């Protein structure tokens, strides 16, 4: 379930962010290419315009120049100089014709009509010049002025005017092309805005989606965490209840064994003694039988006493914590090859039953562990009170262990008991270094002196 969710999220994020990045890259590249295209187009239009304008300008200049040359020729009396002017006119005419040819090549459809007219007028102009060019000096002097005034100047005017017309067309064309570029630009802007909106929308959807999903996962994990915490709490409560139930059962059983079974057996012993006394010298066999029964009852009393103490030592309830711990220490010293020392300071007088039991059971379990696993020679148990904390330390000189790795059920049980009473539990141990258990329990500050 969790794995499927993870892979789903992964795919979603991959698609979402990947798509967004692709969109951004595409729109950026596209914008660059469109910009370059517009730039190129703009350049071409301008170059074209200036090229045409230049040719037209030259044509105008040359047409003027041709008129000037004709005028100079007509005013010239020296035949040699007249030849020079004629030569200049020919050069100019040649330039005009080459420029006309050049312009014809790049002629736009819209210029065809004015250009035709222009070339026709140009031809007529040059044709009209031909007779005048053949004139001698006298003729030139005679007809020159009238020719200039009536033919040359008006014709030249017309041609220049036509050239201007073509120039105007060119200008108009340039204006149209510029407008076209502007249109391209505004189209581009629109496309860019659309792309921007699209990107923002996609990004927004993606961000919203991921946020929703992340928040949902967050909520889910918080919910899980709470569930786990609750389960753990319930488990702790249950184990605390189990411990409490076990303890009260043990206490009841211990009391029952001690007070009822023990007392009855003691009464039985006394009764057997009394019966034996009644029999006196008479029945030897019966006396022997009674003696056997008595021994049996004595053994049973001892067994019952041991069982009762094992379940829960009566000192814990009758005399308090320290006598019970000291008894436990003596018992272990007596039965196992282990020296147990108890050092007890003055401790709080109103330890709760739970607290007394907790400390006692920790000591009992620790001693049990030490005799079973530690191979220790001696154990030191210290019970002190510092302000409102009861501090129990149990140190042995045994072989030690690694607490992180080998924490058995016993240690966990001790920890459980202590933490249930809001205390702290620590185990310090290392192979070859012995073991130290330290328990701190919050208690009330009232104390009473130790009595034993």
């Amino acid at each position, binding site marked *: 379930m969790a794995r499927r969710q993870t892979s789903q999220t992964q795919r979603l994020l991959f698609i979402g962010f990947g798509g967004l990045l692709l969109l951004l890259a595409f729109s950026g590249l596209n914008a660059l290419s469109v910009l370059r295209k517009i730039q190129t187009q703009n350049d071409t239009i301008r170059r074209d315009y200036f090229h045409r304008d230049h040719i037209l300008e030259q044509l105008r200049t040359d047409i003027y120049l041709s008129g000037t040359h004709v005028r100079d020729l007509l005013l010239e009396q020296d035949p040699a100089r007249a030849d020079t002017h004629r030569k200049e006119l020919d050069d100019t005419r040649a330039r005009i014709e080459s420029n006309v040819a050049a312009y014809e090549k790049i002629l736009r459809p819209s210029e065809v009509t004015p250009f035709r007219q222009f070339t026709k007028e140009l031809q007529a102009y040059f044709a009209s010049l031909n007779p005048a060019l053949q004139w001698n000096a006298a003729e030139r002097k005679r007809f020159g002025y009238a020719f200039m005034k009536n033919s040359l100047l008006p014709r030249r005017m017309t041609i220049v005017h036509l050239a201007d017309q073509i120039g105007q067309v060119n200008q108009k064309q340039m204006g149209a092309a510029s407008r076209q570029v502007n249109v391209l630009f505004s189209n581009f802007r629109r496309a860019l805005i659309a792309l921007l909106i699209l990107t923002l929308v996609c990004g927004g959807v993606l961000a919203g989606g991921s946020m929703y999903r992340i928040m949902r996962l967050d909520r889910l994990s918080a919910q899980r965490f709470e569930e786990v915490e609750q389960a753990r709490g319930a488990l702790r409560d249950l184990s605390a209840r189990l411990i409490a139930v076990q303890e009260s059962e043990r206490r009841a059983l211990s009391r029952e064994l001690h007070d009822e079974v023990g007392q009855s057996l003691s009464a039985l012993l006394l009764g057997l003694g*009394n019966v034996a006394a009644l029999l006196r010298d008479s029945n030897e066999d019966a006396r022997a039988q009674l003696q056997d029964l008595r021994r049996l009852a004595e053994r049973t009393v001892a067994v019952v006493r041991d069982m009762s103490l094992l379940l829960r030592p009566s000192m814990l309830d009758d005399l308090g914590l320290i006598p019970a711990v000291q008894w436990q220490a*003596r018992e272990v010293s007596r039965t196992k090859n282990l020296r147990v020392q108890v050092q007890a300071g003055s401790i709080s007088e109103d330890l709760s039953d739970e607290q007394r039991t907790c400390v006692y059971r920790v000591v009992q379990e620790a001693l049990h562990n030490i005799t079973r696993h530690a191979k220790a020679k001696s154990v030191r148990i210290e019970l002190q009170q510092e302000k409102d904390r009861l501090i129990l330390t149990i140190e042995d000189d045994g072989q030690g262990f690694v607490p992180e790795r080998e924490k058995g059920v016993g240690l966990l049980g001790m920890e459980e008991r202590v933490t249930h009473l809001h205390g702290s539990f620590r185990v310090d141990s290392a192979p070859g270094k012995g073991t130290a258990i330290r328990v701190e329990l919050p208690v009330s500050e009232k104390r009473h002196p130790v009595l034993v």
Partner: protein
Amino acid sequence: MSSIRILLADDHTILRHGLRLMLERQPDFTVVAEAENGREAVELTLRENPDVVILDIAMPLLNGIEAAKRITEEQPKSAVMILSMHSDEAYILKALRAGARGYLLKDSAEADLIHAIRAVSAGKAFFSPAVSKVLADDYLRQVQQQGADDPYELLTARERELLQLIVELKSTKDIAGLLNLSPHTVDTHRGNLMQKLNVHSIPELILYAMRKGIIR
């Protein structure tokens, strides 16, 4: 020979009756009253003025230890003996502090019980041999384990003599008479003795004596 007047206190009726039967076989023993709880035991003691009060520890209303305390305070002439199932020294010390002179286990032999009653009524101390043995064994093992010097070795011959008499519950005057000393000197010796043994009260001294096997 005047008879020894006994009060029995135990909440277990059959046991009490068995005990009474047994005790009354002794011609000089008289059971003057039976109580089934601590409070009744105190009241009957004050009324009947017995020589020996035999108390169980675990009794309803008032336990044996508390009853012993009241009886020794209000009726010091009655000697208190605890008859219990507990064999641990913590109980014995508690009983001694409460003023009991004897401490017996319920599974003790008849002879021990009779002997104990005679001893406490004569002003002596008496403890179950089983208890004394356990204490003595513990003490011996402790001394061996710790390898420490036994403080008993530090005592002078006079102090050892004195220790014996103190734990037999003899009064300072009697001891002074027996040892031919002034009561003041006896007090001084007792102080030194307790300091050497690191004990702070007569009950602790008695416990020490039991561990050492001076009292059996």
